[in-house]
């Protein structure tokens, strides 16, 4: 079925891990609407789940009742999602992955986002928290 309008979504959700299935599904639908392959859809889902999880775990320190705003825009050819928290802004230079050759649990989320998306950008937002932008363009597709 053809969808004539861009997929746009804007909502504020609680920082509840039970919503990760919804967040993944939203990301996947956005990726498919933009024209990404199933393989790329899976990578985008992964990046978005990692971003949402990092906010719950690190920004909100596992508090599950804090606001996370999602802003998705997925026109044909590109996927852009912002994940906005209202915690304390963290210097992007301090957001690092563990070395991949150090096999231990944890520390892979940022690495996975950076290897699956074209843009992974952290900015301080108007609430003093962090806005994470995850963007990707369809290879060879329309912009």
């Amino acid at each position, binding site marked *: 079925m053809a969808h004539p309008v861009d997929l746009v979504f804007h909502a504020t959700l609680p920082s509840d*891990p*039970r919503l*990760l*299935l919804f967040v*993944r599904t939203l990301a996947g639908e956005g990726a498919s609407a933009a024209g990404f392959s199933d*393989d790329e859809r*899976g*990578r985008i*889902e*992964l990046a978005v*789940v*990692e971003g949402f*999880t990092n906010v*719950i*775990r690190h920004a909100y320190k596992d508090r599950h009742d804090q606001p996370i705003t999602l802003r998705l825009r997925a026109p044909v050819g590109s996927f852009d999602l912002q994940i906005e928290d209202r915690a304390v802004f963290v210097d992007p230079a301090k957001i690092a992955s563990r070395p*991949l*050759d150090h*096999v*231990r*649990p*944890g520390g*892979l*989320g940022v*690495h*996975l986002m950076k*290897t*699956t998306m074209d843009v992974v950008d952290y900015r301080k937002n108007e609430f003093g928290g962090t806005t994470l932008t995850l963007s990707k363009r369809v290879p060879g597709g329309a912009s």
Partner: protein
Amino acid sequence: MNVTVEQLAKGVLLVVEGQVDMHTSPELRGRLREALERKSTPIVVDLTKVAFIDSSGLATLIEALQAVGKFGGRLRLCGLAPAVRNLFKLSNLISIFDIRETREDATK
């Protein structure tokens, strides 16, 4: 997510279904701990019905791998869907785990 556990003649089989993420990985961690306490190896984790794992799920499997190694046991994974296998590659873990194509091969 759902995890079923089956004691084999030799080893333990865990069949996982659904999405493994921050919300569901504690349940998988609990089931793996129960399996580890049996000291029966190999511990086989069948991921055939898992379409998605994130880094929380990976961390759970790494913990189990390290724990099983402490008593000389083995952990095997099988049935990885392409997206799940891709995650192991992206994380440089594809050669760290003993990954088999089928449950039959993993439980031999």
